[in-house]
């Protein structure tokens, strides 16, 4: 039904530590379809975050992209200059971080930081922006958006903070959100709420979401497709139900076993 929005082919990333070179990702293949949620599942240290960051070209200086292409709407992101990446970040692809406490700057109000996205990517008047931010915060289900806007990040609860982070991510109407373990710091009910929110946003805003997590259970209810990553290679990608019912890789079986 929908074409491929993000197409990662043969992506290899290595880290250079003094003398030797170690591959963190080797020949990763991954496709995110339009208006689809792809759950990227794998153990700790398997390279999930690295995939997310290489899409935005934000890898740490020690990490190097060796080969591969990252096609986004048909353009290879790896070929773009640093300058050309800026209009894509936040505007076309945005990121939700694992720990929003640190992802917000502690010395500025949350509302102002969400507004920044609009300053950089949208032509809006000051007044308009304020209203828009308020609207966004409401959209992600924050009960008292006025207060949240005026707060510093440490004054909000974890759940609210994560919602504010999501509001920031969707501010400029991106096509793709990379959510890196967005719920791992929340309790179960909050996790469920955030998952509901993602599902709602997907249809409302025609979003695609790359949902990075180590929690298969969460992915089961939310994702349209699942990709399983192990030690820097994607061992399996397929529709959620198919992967759950008929896993084709031994590692996936083990993961599923651990779940049940």
């Amino acid at each position, binding site marked *: 039904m929908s074409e491929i929005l993000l197409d990662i082919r043969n992506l290899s990333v290595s880290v250079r530590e003094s003398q030797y070179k170690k591959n963190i990702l080797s020949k990763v293949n991954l496709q995110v379809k339009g208006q689809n949620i792809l759950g990227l599942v794998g153990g700790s240290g398997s390279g999930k975050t690295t995939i997310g960051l290489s899409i935005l070209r934000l890898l740490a200086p020690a990490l190097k992209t060796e080969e591969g292409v990252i096609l986004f709407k048909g353009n290879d992101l790896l070929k773009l200059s640093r300058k050309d990446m*800026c209009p894509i970040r*936040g505007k076309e692809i945005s990121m939700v971080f694992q720990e929003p406490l*640190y992802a917000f*700057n502690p*010395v500025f109000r949350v509302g102002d930081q969400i507004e920044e996205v609009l300053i*950089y990517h949208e032509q809006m008047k000051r007044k308009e922006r304020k209203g828009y931010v308020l609207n966004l915060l409401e959209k992600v289900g924050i009960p008292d958006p006025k207060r949240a806007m005026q707060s510093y990040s440490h*004054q909000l609860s974890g759940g609210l903070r994560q919602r504010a982070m999501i509001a920031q991510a969707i501010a400029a109407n991106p096509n793709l959100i990379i959510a890196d373990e967005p719920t791992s710091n929340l309790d179960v009910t909050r996790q469920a709420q955030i998952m509901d929110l993602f599902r709602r946003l997907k249809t409302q805003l025609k979003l695609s979401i790359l949902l990075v997590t180590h929690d298969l259970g969460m992915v089961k209810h939310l994702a349209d497709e699942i990709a399983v990553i192990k030690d820097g290679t994607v061992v399996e990608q397929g529709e959620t139900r198919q992967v759950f019912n008929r896993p084709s890789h031994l590692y996936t079986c083990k993961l599923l076993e651990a779940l049940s």
Partner: protein
Amino acid sequence: MSKQRKSKTQFQLALENYKKNGFAVLCLVILIVLYGGAIFADFFAPYTYLSESRDNSYAPPSKVHFFDEDGLITRPYVYNRVFHFDEYKRRIYEEDLSRAYPIRLFHKGEEYKFLGFIPMDTHLFGVEEPGMLYLFGADSRGRDVFSRLLYGARISLSIGLIGVSISFSIGLLVGGIAGYYGGKIDNVLMRLCEMFMMVPGFYLMLALRAAVPDDFNSFQVYLAIVVILSFIGWASLARIIRGMSISLREREYVLAAKAMGMTDIQIIIKHILPHTVSYSIVAVMLSIPGYILGEAALSLLGLGIQDPLASWGNMLSEAMAIAHIRLHPWILMPGVLIFLTVMSFNVIGDNLRDCLDPLLKGEKK
């Protein structure tokens, strides 16, 4: 109670802590008075910095009388002075009791442009011609030291502020960039800083001053001095900001800002430098005295602001000979003001550090 605490911003908390130190509050008041005097100098000063009266060379401070001949309290007044020469041909001033000159508020005197553009001739106080009012005495050419101090404050006090803002902009930007990018850029910028730091400040100042063309008018000289002074302070600040910037760039909100599409320079300005604010404010306060002293030193040597423009430094150059200080101690007044200003900035800076530094804050409780 907890609600109240929450609603206080960091700034309010810092202000509260600040007020606990009475001496620092006093210093703040001193600075406000001095800067107020500088801004409204032409209104507060009974004369302009140019008005001279050779008959009153080194006239001592006018005695302000509050009682008339009958010992009754009256509106304050002064007498004019007449002089005769003593055996060393020095002028000895005596009050000329024949006519009293009452001090008038909102006296109409010499014309001036208020704040540089509103023509006015009202001074806060003054005495009628031919009376002369010398609150702090007169200098060698019979110019009112009090008036010249006020005009001089404009130059001496503003030079610190302008100089510090130039050198801090350079220092913050260079330090921010060096720390943020690291690698080669960092290396080049830091070696550059070291080059500036290696040369002793005062000699660098003299060397740069020598490079200023002779035919500059006084305003250009003023600007040149500001630029020269700001060339000196930025390097050490840049090094410290660089250190902070190195640790700040690893913060996750910097990554988040990048993921949002902000460019590097926007990130440096919006997310790195604001975190150095509390350090910078203190550093600014503590380094302003350096600029004021720098100007004073240049002017004292005759390399700075040129007569007849007044600055505290060039006014002080009259006090270079010990004989003058002994005979006319009031020409040391600019030195007193320099001392007060420098002390106030230092005390304020110290106190700000105490109330902004979160580590010390815990200790104090």
